[in-house]
């Protein structure tokens, strides 16, 4: 049948809505499974954050509200570190913006894969976008050679991580100081390990990865020289500037 855009009736999109329920459930389960190794990294951090928050005088409910509404670990660690009674509003909100401005770039990279979604589908889904969910979903779409994100997969990953983050930060706040020093068990390497495997998946040779090297050097330098959380934003932007310059060099 020949259809022109002006005559187009709303045909259900096979990849978006027409996917059978079992297919959706399978995709969501695949996402949930993919989130399990990452959870291993989430749980110890969540407990530590909870314990630190309890020491700063935040109640279990207040911390659960923070991790449930904000759901961005880096900024929550920063906020708890800077917490006073009463808290300093501008300092904490400003630091949150600084730590999380990488999300703007991440959302921009994800946008082409979400173009098929309605705004009322995309905006709630983006509430759950954290580093790991974003990277896993993007890597999954690229590995399948797809131009669209698998939304059930994305929500499977995100749902697993969200639930474990909120539950275990609250647990950490409840059991508080009894947790002790988790650093001695080496859990802080879990995130680095996850990110390194994701980077391996994106590797396209030394030449193509020169912007990464720029990001690494600038971020590490900023971490050593500057207070606060400037290193993520500066490193990411420096790498992209390098990418632009290298592209212009090719053209």
């Amino acid at each position: 049948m020949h259809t022109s855009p002006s005559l187009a009736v709303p045909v259900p999109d096979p990849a978006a809505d027409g996917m059978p329920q079992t297919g959706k459930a399978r995709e969501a389960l695949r996402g949930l499974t993919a989130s399990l190794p990452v959870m291993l990294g989430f749980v110890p951090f969540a407990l530590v954050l909870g314990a630190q928050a309890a020491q700063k005088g935040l109640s279990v409910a207040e911390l659960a509200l923070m991790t449930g509404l904000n759901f961005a670990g880096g900024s929550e660690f920063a906020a708890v570190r800077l917490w006073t009674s009463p808290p300093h509003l501008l300092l904490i909100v400003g630091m949150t913006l600084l730590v999380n401005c990488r999300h703007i770039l991440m959302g921009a990279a994800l946008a082409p894969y979400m173009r098929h979604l309605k705004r009322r589908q995309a905006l709630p889904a983006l509430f759950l976008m954290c580093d790991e969910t974003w990277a896993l979903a993007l890597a999954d779409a690229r590995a399948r050679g797809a131009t669209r994100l698998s939304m059930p997969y994305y929500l499977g990953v995100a749902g697993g991580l969200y639930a474990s983050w909120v539950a275990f930060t609250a647990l950490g706040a409840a059991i508080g100081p009894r947790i002790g020093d988790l650093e001695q068990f080496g859990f802080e390497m879990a995130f680095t390990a996850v990110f390194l495997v994701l980077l391996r998946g994106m590797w396209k040779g030394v030449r193509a990865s020169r912007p990464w090297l720029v990001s690494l050097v600038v971020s590490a330098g900023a971490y050593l020289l500057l207070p606060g959380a400037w290193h993520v934003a500066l490193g990411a932007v420096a790498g992209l500037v390098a990418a632009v310059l290298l592209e212009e060099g090719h053209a």
Partner: protein
Amino acid sequence: MLDLTTSLTTSLTTLLVIVLMATATYLTRIMGFLLLRNRTLSPRMLAVMENVPGCVLISVIAPAFVSDQPAKLLALAITVLAATRLSLLPTVFIGVAATGLLGRLMG
């Protein structure tokens, strides 16, 4: 009575800070999508955007590469090696175990 007022103000401020913090974070999450959803990027811009994931991820973990503790640097080297040949779960196990053990032995 004064104590009650003070603690009420404190918890209201706490609530306000948490809500504003969450709003700021949510805005960063939707901004990139809202700016780019209806735009077609030039091939050159697309090539640049290809680098976003790698540059963001490596900037987040960069501090591990300049740790002042030799045990952590050695553990990182082992984790990098594992990441180049193993899948996610074994790499995470090896990274955590190496960091924990080397921290004990060398720390």
